[in-house]
């Protein structure tokens, strides 16, 4: 995303806070827009595995995700702006997840919920398990746990709201991800190199 360098604000944050103390709200369209967007995140109703049950629990009475404006779980990716990857992504499932991501309208966000979605988790050794959804889809928030408690998911959501509030209006670059295909032994390609590179291992000499 190429952004023009922001002009010096006419009113500083300190002045704005001072005005707010006197009962005057001075804001910008951008801020208002981000505030609204961050409190009406519509997740996709999309469950993969164990974590999906905790995702459902987060939307039920005790944890009540509606307090954060995200109770509207949409069945269609066309109407959703948050993909919660809740569970193990297998290689057989990975093309579908990428396709669902591609069908979601911009601006869109992704939460990798649980150890499996982050890295393969306990099933990392599996021949059919994708070692982290970030190999194919850009992830905004990682929520660790196996499965994460509903509170942890809510924490991830709050972090996502903070991230949204820090964004500025503009035309985001379309983030269409290439869909992997089934091959004879593995997916083809096994990762999206633009999104994910293996971490660099720093090793002592001779180790």
């Amino acid at each position, binding site marked *: 995303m190429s952004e023009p360098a922001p002009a010096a604000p006419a009113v500083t944050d300190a002045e704005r806070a001072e005005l707010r103390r006197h009962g005057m709200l001075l804001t910008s369209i951008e801020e208002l827009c981000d505030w609204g967007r961050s409190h009406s995140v519509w997740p996709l109703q999309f469950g993969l595995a164990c974590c999906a049950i905790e995702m459902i629990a987060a939307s039920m009475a005790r944890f009540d995700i509606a307090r954060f404006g995200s109770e509207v779980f949409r069945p269609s990716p066309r109407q959703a702006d948050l993909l919660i990857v809740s569970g193990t992504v297998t290689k057989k499932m990975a093309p579908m997840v990428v396709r669902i991501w591609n069908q979601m309208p911009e601006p869109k966000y992704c939460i990798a919920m649980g150890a499996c979605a982050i890295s393969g988790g306990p099933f*990392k*050794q599996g021949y059919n398990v994708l070692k982290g959804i970030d190999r194919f889809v850009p992830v905004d928030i990682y929520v660790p746990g196996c499965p994460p408690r509903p509170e942890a998911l809510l924490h991830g959501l709050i972090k996502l709201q903070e991230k949204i509030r820090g964004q500025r209006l503009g035309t985001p670059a379309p983030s269409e991800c290439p869909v992997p295909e089934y091959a*004879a032994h*593995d997916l083809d390609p096994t990762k999206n190199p633009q999104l994910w590179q293996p*971490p660099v291992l720093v*090793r002592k000499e001779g*180790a």
Partner: protein
Amino acid sequence: METTEQIRERILASLPGAQVSLVTNPGLAAQHSLLLGAAHALQAALLLRDDAALRLDFCSNVTGVDWPEREVSEADPTAPGGKVKRVVPGFLEVVYHLYSVALGHGPLVVRMRTANRSDQVTLPSLTPVWRSCEFQEREVFDLFGVVFAGHPDLRRILMWDEFKDHPMRKDYVEPDDFEWEPTPHGDVLERARRHYPAPARPAKEPAP
């Protein structure tokens, strides 16, 4: 329920010429099993299901076992050293666990074995006898590569259709797709070494 040996005799009485042998289970559970020859397996299965004294109408569990070729050493007084090494050919095995809902007994364990692990891997399907074998035999076909003759819909069930391997076999090599993991686990470190060869020795230590 009758003992496994009695059931074997019952099958042999009705199906003379059938290959049925007893496989003893040395474990504490002592669930012995019957090894059926492929030629008469379907008739024997029908008999087990329909015999008034057995009525094993419920096939609970179907699974495969891979037994690769292995070398055993056996005592042989004529050989030098008193032992001789022999290669036991590998085979694939399908195990069925049968119960009777009507009479409330079980399990009877029935096995079938293929001739080898490469080209002669066809066994008769028991789906015409017990409907519950349908998906489980597909799974054995998918993960072990046993071909079931007479199965109504023999396709891969868990892996995708383009997949070529049989991952539950002992000699399956999984795709090398986890690059690095920060654990002290021996296997994982070995993988990490393979992926990240030791860095070239720097020519000179940079001055601080």
